[in-house]
């Protein structure tokens, strides 16, 4: 074993180092939450793979890997992520905050409409009874497991409207800035949980 290690040349050490780097990048891709970071990690994964191909005397495959893995696929991911243009709101408040007289004329609706128009999003308000019947404690799971971006509820004790969403959603930070002048609106951001927790 010792002989084997001492016989290695510099290029072999580089190859081993790159292979370990590959494993670390792969784990990081699985564990990361931010989409932009994941795209960069995927691109760097392909770049490291391509250099391993070159070390193993396969330049043809390396060119294909660089062109596809670290140029086309990240660009397609960037396009697809920028294409997520719907802002889905689950209305659990059930009063005239959003829907008054069976029409979208409430204060909350005007606020959310202005917000989504500003960011060129399509506002989609739902009060699906199946989702609304879930308890308060399920709100975080609802945000994580479904494609609901925002949950609107009413606090019965303080009469405040509570807007709940994921902290990793950049729109939540913008919404918090926008609503900080309204005294009866509170924004709650759910912290992202670790994988498997």
């Amino acid at each position, binding site marked *: 074993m010792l002989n084997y290690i001492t016989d290695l040349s510099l290029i072999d050490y580089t190859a081993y180092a790159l292979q370990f780097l590959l494993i670390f990048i792969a784990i990081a891709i699985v564990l990361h939450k931010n989409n932009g970071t994941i795209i960069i990690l995927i691109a760097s994964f392909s770049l490291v793979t391509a250099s391993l191909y070159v070390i193993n005397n396969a330049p043809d495959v390396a060119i*294909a890997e660089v062109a596809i893995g670290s*140029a086309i696929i990240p660009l397609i991911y960037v396009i697809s992520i920028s294409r997520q243009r719907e802002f889905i709101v689950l209305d659990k408040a059930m009063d005239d905050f959003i829907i008054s007289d069976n029409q979208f004329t409430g204060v909350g609706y005007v606020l959310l409409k202005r917000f989504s128009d500003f960011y060129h999003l399509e506002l989609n308000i739902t009060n699906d009874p199946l989702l609304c019947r879930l308890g308060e404690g399920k709100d975080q799971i609802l945000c994580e497991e479904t494609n609901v971006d925002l949950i609107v509820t009413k606090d019965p004790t303080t009469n405040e409207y509570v807007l709940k969403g994921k902290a990793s959603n950049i729109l939540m930070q913008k919404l918090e800035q926008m609503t900080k002048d309204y005294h009866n609106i509170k924004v709650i951001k759910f912290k992202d949980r670790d994988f498997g927790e």
Partner: protein
Amino acid sequence: MSRKIILLTLLGTLFVVFTMSMIELETLYNDYGKLYFLENGFADTGSRNLVTAILLDYRLFDSLFEAGILLIAVSGVIWISKHDIEEKNAQFMIDKYKTPDLFVTFSRLVYPLMLTFGFYVIINGHLSPGGGFQGGAIVATAILILYYIDADKETNIGLIVTVEKIIYLLIIVLASLSIFTRGTFFTNFFALDASPDTKAIYLVLLNVLIGFKVALGLWTIFTAFLKEGR
């Protein structure tokens, strides 16, 4: 927590099995094929790049189906992204104000170089590393960069796919020409004892066709992605 431990154990097992299989590789290894290709590859096919020699001459039948797979993938992507309702505003959606100016300027600078390099890789496929598929992918990336420069660019997907299909048929026809000259399908249509320079004409022709086919196919795929969700 337990899920995490299971995940890590699985990853560790995978790693160990992979390492062990790499050690066992030595006993399975033989080099008859390699020696044959090294000895006869250039004389048989006229290609300095033995990968191209195998891809476009010895194993052309397999390569044809590989090119067909891309065509099928493109058809699938178009079928999924097809909309029944005619969209009123089907322009491209890379927003001018969202793309950084630095990226746009740099893309303008890099775009012609990428295009030139792509064509170089395609045409020199039989001499240097690369070939139709790799060069086509580079050309497709250059075209994709073009959409970042000019966000309002309109593309006719139907026309691109039609041209791609015609090119695929041309590839099959070019590959089958050898039935008239050599008596077998799917090989070089020049005689076996022709000079390597003559044989290279066939390789360049096929590489260019495959390069255009791959570039058009990838172009279609990301055009479908660009139109989606508008």
